[in-house]
């Protein structure tokens, strides 16, 4: 009874202390690649990579050497599109966080009649063609739509405004956040929350101190996917909001509009979108990788 606690628990350190065993087979498998069959695999992968690389390289091939970036970046169509895109996508992201987070929580944790239906309904825009979203939004919130007269009575006109751009983006992009957040919440062990409650921590505080941090990789991943989807929104926006410079003309719409009149501006906007998307992907991988390393203890 005199030995200290730490000694009496004669436990050994984690299994991670023997790295050679787990690493070796994986390394062998990788070296075994250059067989005839795998050469074919490489050709296939190479073709696919080329197919994706070609358009990206073509854009940068036109933009980078010519110094277009500097001469074009100040043009109104570019500036307005950048500003409007930043504004609308951030608003969409805000809506996703504020409305999507409780929705995701509800779907993950509550059993209520119609839950499966609500679940499917919220994921519907993910598989819906954007053109369908556009016409649907027009029929619902347009001037002659379902809620048109009611909105007009309140002095609200949505179609062809910046608000319509946000609405279109919310419709197509927020489901990406809700889906990811929901599976993140689902994966949080209920016992963690029960323990927190027994320690006297309120449900609200438990949500912020336990549930959100543990689900953070999924929340961040979902938010990024949502933002990226909003960034690329084209079909629903052009149908429901139109393409008015400075008001509803986001970057994808500006690219389309400038294609004939100002190819240089279109190219620069495209290059910016590619660069931003690529950085987003890289950051996301890093962040989620690091965070989930912490979370899956």
């Amino acid at each position, binding site marked *: *009874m005199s030995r*200290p*606690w*730490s*000694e*009496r*628990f*004669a*436990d*050994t*350190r*984690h299994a991670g202390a023997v790295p050679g065993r787990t690493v070796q087979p994986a390394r062998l498998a990788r070296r075994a690649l250059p067989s005839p069959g795998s050469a074919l695999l490489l050709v296939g992968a190479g073709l696919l990579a080329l197919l994706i690389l070609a358009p990206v390289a073509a854009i940068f091939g036109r933009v980078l050497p010519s110094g277009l970036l500097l001469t074009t970046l100040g043009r109104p169509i570019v500036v307005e599109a950048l500003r409007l895109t930043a504004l609308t996508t951030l608003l969409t992201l805000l809506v996703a966080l504020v409305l999507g987070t409780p929705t995701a929580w509800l779907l993950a944790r509550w059993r209520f009649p119609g839950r499966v239906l609500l679940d499917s309904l919220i994921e519907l825009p993910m598989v819906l063609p954007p053109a369908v979203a556009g016409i649907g939004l027009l029929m619902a919130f347009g001037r002659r739509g379902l809620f048109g007269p009611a909105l007009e009575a309140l002095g609200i006109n949505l179609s062809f405004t910046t608000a319509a751009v946000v609405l279109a983006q919310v419709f197509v992009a927020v489901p990406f956040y809700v889906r990811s957040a929901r599976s993140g919440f689902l994966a949080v*062990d209920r*016992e*963690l929350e*029960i*323990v*927190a*409650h*027994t*320690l*006297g*921590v*309120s449900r609200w505080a438990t949500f912020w*101190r*336990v549930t959100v*941090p*543990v689900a*953070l990789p999924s929340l961040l991943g979902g938010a990024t996917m949502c933002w990226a989807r909003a960034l690329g929104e084209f079909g629903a926006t052009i149908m429901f909001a139109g393409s008015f410079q400075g008001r509803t003309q986001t970057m994808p719409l500006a690219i389309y509009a400038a294609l004939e009149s100002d190819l240089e501006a279109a190219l620069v906007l495209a290059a910016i979108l590619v660069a931003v998307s690529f950085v987003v992907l890289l950051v996301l991988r890093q962040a989620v990788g690091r965070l989930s390393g*912490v*979370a*899956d*203890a």
Partner: protein
Amino acid sequence: MLEVGIFKHFEGFTLDVAFRTEAALTALLGPSGSGKSLTLRAIAGALRPDRGRIVIDGHLVFDTDRGIDLPPQARRVGYVPQHYALFPHLTVVENVGFGLKDRRCPEARRRIAALLELTGLTGLERRRPRELSGGQQQRVALARALIVQPRILLLDEPFAALDATIRASVRASLLELQRVLGFQALLVTHDPVDAALAGQVFVLERGRLVREPSSG
């Protein structure tokens, strides 16, 4: 003192358990699926029985007749789940101090340090749960539950997840910790060896107590 009388009907399973114990360490013994963990959850306030009454250390925390159902936050129970449920994003110190109002005030720091010392965790303060061995994780869960001075400690299969070679020493350590700190504990287990530690044992099968061996 612990007094439990609970009834809850599930689809295909009925939990109907009533017992009363004065022992410092009480065991609920039974195979998996017998309702042990459900009973523990009901005492902790994470599961609401259809009807019944739970008195912990003289404090009525649940009574359907009188419409009393204290939330887990107000029951002052320490809960150690089978896989410990340590907060993966927090360090050992942050885990242990989780239930304290202000973890950084001098009094809290002193209490955390004392409990870490007592559970042999000194030196591991900055580690995260995944960097700990199973035995260490269990001690963090114990310290985290004990820091708020619960009226009862609820242990769900506390030794099942541990390596067989260290189980005996961990059992001894739990008794030692209980002797030093003097808390009441209820442990749930499928292993008669664990149950032998207890002053009183109740045997649970298919949601009901089947016999009540006298204290040993």
